[in-house]
């Protein structure tokens, strides 16, 4: 029992997003909407009240034509491990009602909509704007309700929601593992994938257990091109990014003019 427990704690699901492969097609967003019963309104152009569990940002190098470059950056919930990897992610420690929690088994930051009473403190705490508030009652017009998946419960107005790394898929994979009596074996990489990783047509998003050597992310995250967003805040995200472009990397965090990305590690 004890060993199993320790093994489970060793799991840390994470993502590696190769920005040099992202074409900004938005399939990850749509895949996520469909998978997670994300609501939609007739007008979604106000991006500050538009619910997206993963949002693709468009970065540019700021140079004039024709030296301009752009880079797309998909941003899901970073599933922060928090300072010193204790699970005190910026949001979890501030939630007054334990509606959001750090799951020691998977490292995933949960959000329980029925517990949330909508104080929005977690949104104030999250530097990534990963958390979205249900300002409106969700409405599914015509027969669109019929497309709702039973695996994810639809949210009601007045609560916060965010990317769950498609945790329901983990639940279903575990369910199957129990049924097939392999609950004590680690889940395979294919057993549990997020909807965005699955939908990404260019293979930009790789998902898996960062601690499991058999999973691709384990190796990918050690690339010299790897970095994390706003890493210097000490949030310890479990979403890594890859890019060979220094200007992109520089925009992924804040640097003083004399600082260079990638050369700060010894400082902290």
């Amino acid at each position, binding site marked *: 029992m004890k060993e199993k427990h320790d093994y489970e704690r060793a799991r840390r699901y994470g993502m590696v997003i190769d920005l040099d492969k992202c074409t900004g097609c938005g399939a990850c967003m749509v895949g996520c909407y469909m998978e997670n019963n994300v609501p939609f309104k007739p007008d979604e152009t106000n991006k500050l009240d538009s619910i997206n569990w993963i949002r693709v940002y468009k970065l*540019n190098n700021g140079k004039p034509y024709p030296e301009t470059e752009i880079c797309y950056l998909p941003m899901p919930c970073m599933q922060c491990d928090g300072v010193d990897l204790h699970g005190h992610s910026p949001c979890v420690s501030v939630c007054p009602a334990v509606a959001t929690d750090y799951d020691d088994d998977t490292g995933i930051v949960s959000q329980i909509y029925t517990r949330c009473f909508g104080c929005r403190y977690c949104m104030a705490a999250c530097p990534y704007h990963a958390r979205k508030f249900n300002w409106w009652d969700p409405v599914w017009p015509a027969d669109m309700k019929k*497309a709702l998946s039973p695996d994810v419960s639809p949210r009601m107005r*007045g609560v916060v929601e965010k990317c769950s790394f498609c945790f329901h898929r983990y639940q279903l994979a575990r369910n199957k593992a129990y049924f097939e009596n392999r609950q004590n074996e680690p889940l395979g990489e294919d057993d549990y994938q997020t909807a965005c990783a699955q939908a990404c047509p260019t293979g930009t998003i790789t998902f898996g257990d960062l601690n499991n050597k058999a999973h691709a992310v384990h190796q990918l995250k050690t690339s010299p091109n790897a970095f994390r967003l706003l890493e210097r805040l000490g949030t310890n995200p479990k979403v890594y990014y890859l890019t060979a472009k220094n200007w992109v990397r520089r925009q992924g965090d804040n640097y003083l003019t004399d600082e260079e990305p990638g050369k700060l590690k010894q400082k902290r």
Partner: protein
Amino acid sequence: MKINRRNFLTYTTAAALGGAAGTLLTPVPWKLMDDAAIWTQNWPWTPVPEAGPVSYKPSICTLCPGGCGIYVRFSGNRPVKIEGMKEHPVNKGALCPMGLSGLQYLYGPDRVRSPLKREGKRGEGKWKKITWDEALAAVTEKLASLRKLEEPQSVACITGMEGGTLPSLIGRFLTVYGSPNLMRQATAQDAGAQAVFLTQGKQGTPGFDIENADFILSFGSGMLDGWGAPGRMSRLFGARNTAQRFIQIEPRLSDTAASANRWIGINPGTEGALALGLAHIIVKESLYNKHFVETFTFGFNDWNDEAGVAHTGFKALLEGYGPENVSRITGIQEALIKSLAREFAGSSRPIAINGRGKGALPGGMNETLAVHALNALMGNINKTGGLYVIPELTYAKWPDLGMDGIASRGMRQPRCDGAGGDLFPNSRFLLNRVPTLINTTKDGSPVEALLVVDANPMYTLPDTAATRKAFERIPFIVSFSSYMDETASYADYILPDHSPLERYQDVPAPAGMSHQVISLAVPVIKPLYDTRHTGDAFIHMAKALGGFIEEAFPWNGYEAFLEDTLQGHWRILKKKGVVEIIETPAASDRFTFNTASAKYEFYPTARAGTGKRDSDVLPAYAPAILDGDEKTFNLILIPCDSIRMAGDHMASSPFMTKTVDDTVLKKQMTLVEINPATALKLNLEEGGKALLKTPKGKASVLIHLYEGIMPGLIAMPRGLGHTAYSEYLANKGTNINELMGPIEDPASGLDMAWGIRAQLFRV
């Protein structure tokens, strides 16, 4: 103790306090508090999705001509998600946002739920529900009456670009009925097909073996913006190896350009000149495939015809496209032109591709020929990593047609779009010419009845105002659309088709694919509403018209027709959903060309004819004459495509629209991209309001400053500005077709417009 008025209040207060104290010791407040919270967790207006056993059904996405394989995930009997099919040869699991949100087209509020007959004025939106029998009888009656008047050619039908056997079925119907007017809106693929016909003498579409090419030179093709089969293109990009070079040439830093190894900005519309300029260097420096050019091509060098008349060859044409000249035309530095040519020619399997954006607009024929010539110079024709020709699928023999005099006479009438006539003998459809032709007809309309299938010309045709004016003159319009789109809402009758997931549809050749892949979309669910397959509707109408028309349709429905048509493939398709035909051309076949010279023709003799000079036949570059005078309209408006938006007859789904950035669409306004330097001159600011005027129309827009666009240009996204559909899709920005008109390519009649002159005012 007496109760009186004075102490009554005190006693009541005491009892109330006692009651309050007691109540606190009962479950009442606590249970109610808990239950009230649970009530908020299960508000009756928050849906609870019903659970059911999970299953997956395979099919094909037919929302665009890409034909990607999909799995539809079911919960019980409800489709709840669409995912990519890993085993499908086209997309191998990858899907675009449109395909992923396919269920929103199935369940959405935009569906037409039963046949409708117009009440009130056209486009007013007043409808009467009618039965299928009534609807079919009304259309059949109209067709029968036109036949009786011996004017069957006045019936025209517009089909979608999805291909498959349905257009063939409708074509057969029109033929026996007596009308040659089967049309669809031409795309870059049609321009490519014509180029293939002109150079190789084959009927078929160009297929690009991008998978195996090691140098991809794209003249503005939005390879990652929805060009070809989007699932395939995205997958290829992701799987690209480091040895593969991908160069994008266009005046705006599109998403494709951003993902390419190199983006080269070019003056818009001068891609043809660049292709010739590259050819110039390649030829001058003898970098081309001499064996292929000398052995298998015609018209490279100057030549004398049978009458002994001297003709200029392609090589001579290139004389005029030296780097200096081309640099001046294209705005690209000479050195870059030279190095690009050398890099292209120095690669082992280079491929050149054209067709701007998603490829929805055909573009000029000369430009397409010039780009194809680059491939021919390298001998990359019908070989790995090169340009293939996907032949039209030869279907099994259908019963012979018996035709009466009316039908035969009707079929001999010139087409209402002029395609295939003296002027444009090599073009098959020229729908872009129809509005002008109708509008310039003195009395009445050459089209008396218009049937629209899987198409939405009132949105997609350039120059919306002219299109609308032309449609006003067509007395009888029937739409077979599943959705209340612009054309359907303007029709007299709507005979709604099933939506893609509810119907059979074969996809014989996915756009741009280098080999034949026949896929079959199968109905994964029973139709939700009172809709009917358009194939069934046409077969029904044929039977109702009777006689030899009925005899031409011995099938009892579309499924039977499809089975008969696909013959040997049917069984495999029903079972596997896909048949992949990878016919590597035999060495001998590779260089079999059906042209007059039996060679690849740099000089397309099919274009030659009386009165044609060599310069008309060879793919010379001529600048397109844009509408509008340069002084008043001092900017140029170009359309741009995004894979997050549907550009064609289908509107973007709510989820696609949701992914669109607020630098593209804000509330109900389109943002146009403009270079900050240009904006500064015009005193325009980020997010500011502006009036955009072109010779065709005007629109209120917002400004988005974008460094990635050439100064002097305005880019506007295609796919916005729908006026029909529900509030989730409609009234979002401006339809660029309201601002842009077609420009007739003198060589082909196809629409070669890539932009229009414009002016922009701050308001």
